[in-house]
């Protein structure tokens, strides 16, 4: 089975590899794993007060397709709102990377990872602390 050029590009030059501070309230962490291949994926997002993803990092142990799927996803979610990022479908990832049927689960993993990261951010009440302080004169000045 041959990997597509896009998979090889992401595999050889993965974007946004790294880690963020899990304890930071503005950071959401998603960890997922695929039993079929033993792949493990960690995806983290940094969300600003406006609910927009400012940065994304990943660390993936797995095959080329799993690494490419998470690398591509970090590129896609930057600049998106949580709602937009949460509606990314695995089929879009699989299509962009031209994944063969046996590697579709890698894109499923990436979709689950961003959803888990968003859930984690929301569960932590991400950004809530900041909203208590008035951002500017407009809020509450009815």
């Amino acid at each position, binding site marked *: 089975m041959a990997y597509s050029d896009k998979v090889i590009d992401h595999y050889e030059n993965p974007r946004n590899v790294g880690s963020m501070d899990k304890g930071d309230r503005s950071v959401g962490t998603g960890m997922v794993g695929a039993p*079929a291949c033993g792949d493990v994926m960690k995806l983290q997002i940094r969300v600003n007060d406006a609910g927009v993803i400012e940065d994304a990092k990943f660390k993936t*142990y797995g095959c080329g397709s799993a690494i490419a799927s998470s690398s591509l996803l970090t590129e896609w979610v930057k600049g998106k709102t949580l709602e937009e990022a949460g509606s990314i479908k695995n089929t879009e990832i699989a299509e962009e990377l031209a994944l063969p049927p046996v590697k579709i689960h890698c894109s499923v993993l990436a979709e689950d990872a961003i959803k888990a990261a968003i859930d984690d951010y929301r569960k932590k009440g991400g950004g809530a602390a900041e909203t208590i302080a008035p951002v500017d004169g407009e809020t509450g000045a009815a």
Partner: protein
Amino acid sequence: MTEGDRATLELDLKQNHFELLGLPQRFRIDPGALSQAYRHMQSALHPDRFARAGDQARRLAVQGAAQVNEAYAVLRDDGRRARYLLELHGVAVDEERDTAQDPEFLMEQMELREALEAAEQDPRPLEAVERVRADIGARHKALLQAFEQAFEAGDLAAAKAEVLKIRFFERLRQEATALAERLEDRDLP
């Protein structure tokens, strides 16, 4: 009618792997009894015994021998035996879709993989890899025990969760073994 003929004609191809080899349908298995049952069935179905039998008997024997081989391969492997038991109880394990999200377990997976990576950079890499392998082996064994407990208690949901975790450890063991082999080759002149 020869002995062999009768053996074949009495072979019920709808039996499950445990029934086929005459073993109790549970997770704990006696390795000696398993290989003995396997050898017994293999010789009972050996083609030589059916050299002069009819076409149908010969075909049945070949089919039966293939099933016996498959049954042996599944039952002798702890992970496959566990998954097969769940299957017999109507619990499907969809490894493509059942993605695991237990953060603690996944963090452990990440750490074990990082430990393997670090071991490769160790001044004495082979010994370092062996330590990680022993750790992986012990955790794998504990999961198999947890599966047995859950399964014997009839908690199939918990048993399935263990089976999914076991898959990760099987994969991890393969990778650790491959790494150890690679390191051993590297040391060759």
